[in-house]
């Protein structure tokens, strides 16, 4: 007869050892899975990043969507998409493999070329530019054939030692055009079906650019009070949109007939109006902000952008009228004394430059309005300094250029 005492003991020990071994096997499997996942994620992230570089290398700013097999082996596919986001381009790269995805996005504009230091581009309408008071033009200026002269307004002559602090070149009768397609894309948001009403939104909202754009309809008039909205949002009002001092907006697009930014508004957003855009005293908009006057239909009044004293904008201020629009009055950009724009100003119509621009001004005609008279192509105490802008500055994506460089 075989006794089972030692056998029973050994089976018990074997069970414990087997359980321990099983635990080790499970642990090894878990680590291997995690490692594979990590390596796969790293590869996808690298591919998504390569996709962004691929888009940056292309010279087109137009909307596009395409699948690309990056390295020709069928295992590095990325979906590359590009669309306009206001005055900038939004790049999207999605790398995918076996159900996993890594998404990278970038907001991009145009890189300044190494020799690009345009301070002023004034269209050649056959009249010279007159400089008065403490006006300073620093950088390359594109001027009418009639040139630049000393001026004398309100008892004040020109105080500088040189009319220009930089080189002078000949301008054309029209300005370098803006990308109409980008601005038409903007126009579509105005009439697109609204995703939701402004009243339904929470006070604090971040909406990712990897999701579809939320178009928020504010009705006829909309006032944004204490809201904190960021991301992929288009906020529109049919008539008037007022941004109050308590509102914090970042990356969003505002579209309305008239837009008013009340004193002390802070943020980095793009506002596009068709009738008027007023930036009150003390407003400080960070980079990249855009204030645009876009006119798609005929008008009988004068659409305008006004940047009041003490307000500052880092980005782009422009006026644009669609080529088919017929109007007697030119659009009007009014930079008041002690206002500051760091970036670019593009006035397809008239502009009054009494503030400071650290960057470039493209202007069809300069009009200086005083209480008693208006002066054409006169600058009084205006500062336009192209060299005060960082050489690493990324400009908007609206200027049509050969070999657009992001």
């Amino acid at each position, binding site marked *: 007869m*075989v*006794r089972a005492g030692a056998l029973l003991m050994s*089976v018990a020990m074997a069970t414990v050892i*087997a359980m321990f*071994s099983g635990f080790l096997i499970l642990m090894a499997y878990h680590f291997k899975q995690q490692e594979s996942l990590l390596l796969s994620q790293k590869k996808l992230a690298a591919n998504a990043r390569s996709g962004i570089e691929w888009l940056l*290398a292309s010279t087109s700013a137009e909307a596009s969507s395409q699948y690309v097999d990056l390295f020709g082996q069928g295992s590095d596919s990325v979906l590359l998409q590009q669309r306009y986001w206001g005055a900038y381009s939004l790049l999207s790269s999605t790398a995918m493999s076996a159900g996993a995805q890594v998404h990278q996005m970038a907001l991009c504009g145009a890189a300044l070329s190494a020799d690009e230091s345009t301070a002023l581009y004034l269209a050649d309408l056959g009249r010279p530019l007159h400089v008065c008071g403490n006006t300073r033009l620093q950088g390359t200026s594109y001027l009418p054939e009639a040139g630049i002269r000393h001026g004398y307004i309100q008892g004040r002559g020109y105080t500088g030692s040189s009319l220009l602090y930089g080189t002078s070149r000949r301008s054309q009768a029209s300005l370098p055009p803006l990308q109409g397609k980008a601005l038409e894309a903007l126009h579509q948001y105005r009439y697109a079906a609204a995703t939701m009403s402004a009243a339904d939104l929470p006070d604090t909202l971040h909406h990712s650019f990897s999701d579809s754009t939320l178009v928020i309809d504010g009705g006829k008039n909309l006032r944004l009070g204490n809201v904190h909205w960021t991301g992929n949002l288009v906020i529109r009002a049919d008539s008037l949109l007022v941004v109050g001092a308590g509102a914090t907006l970042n990356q969003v697009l505002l579209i309305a007939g008239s837009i008013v930014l009340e004193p002390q508004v802070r943020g980095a957003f793009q506002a596009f109006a068709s009738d008027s855009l007023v930036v009150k005293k003390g407003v400080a908009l960070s980079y990249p902000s855009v204030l645009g006057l876009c006119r798609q239909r005929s008008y009988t009044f004068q659409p305008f952008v006004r940047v009041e004293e003490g307000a500052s904008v880092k980005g782009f201020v422009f006026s644009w009228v669609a080529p088919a629009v017929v109007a007697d009055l030119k659009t009007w950009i009014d930079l008041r004394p002690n206002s500051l724009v760091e970036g670019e100003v593009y006035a397809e119509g008239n502009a009054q430059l009494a503030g400071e621009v650290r960057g470039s001004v493209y202007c069809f005609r300069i009009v200086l309005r005083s209480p008693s008279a208006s002066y054409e192509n006169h600058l009084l105490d205006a500062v336009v300094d192209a060299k005060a802008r960082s050489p690493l500055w990324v400009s908007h994506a609206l200027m049509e250029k050969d070999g657009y460089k992001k």
Partner: protein
Amino acid sequence: MDALKFRLKAASLLETIIALLITLTVFGISAMVYVQLLRSGLRVQTLKASQRMSELADEMRSSQHWGTETFKEEGFIIEKTTAHYAQQPSLMQLELIAADEEGRVLASHRALILPRDP
């Protein structure tokens, strides 16, 4: 006194042999698992190599030093190759391969980099 009367029964030879066989078999299997687990230590090297590849790619983006070379670093033999990307010649294609001392490939990394203006 009752405790002293307890007598432990001895196992038979056959019982002992069977018990030893079972114990040795299970122990052998667990030893194999353990060795396998120890071998997975090589995966740490794989992860380290992969991480280093990513860092090198980032360094290349910053330094913009193109070229083809093989060098030894942190116990890895790293082969770096750069060439103009066939689909868009304005891009550079970077390929990094890390191997151990015995020549086993641990990790590789491919990336496209847009050169900055000088």
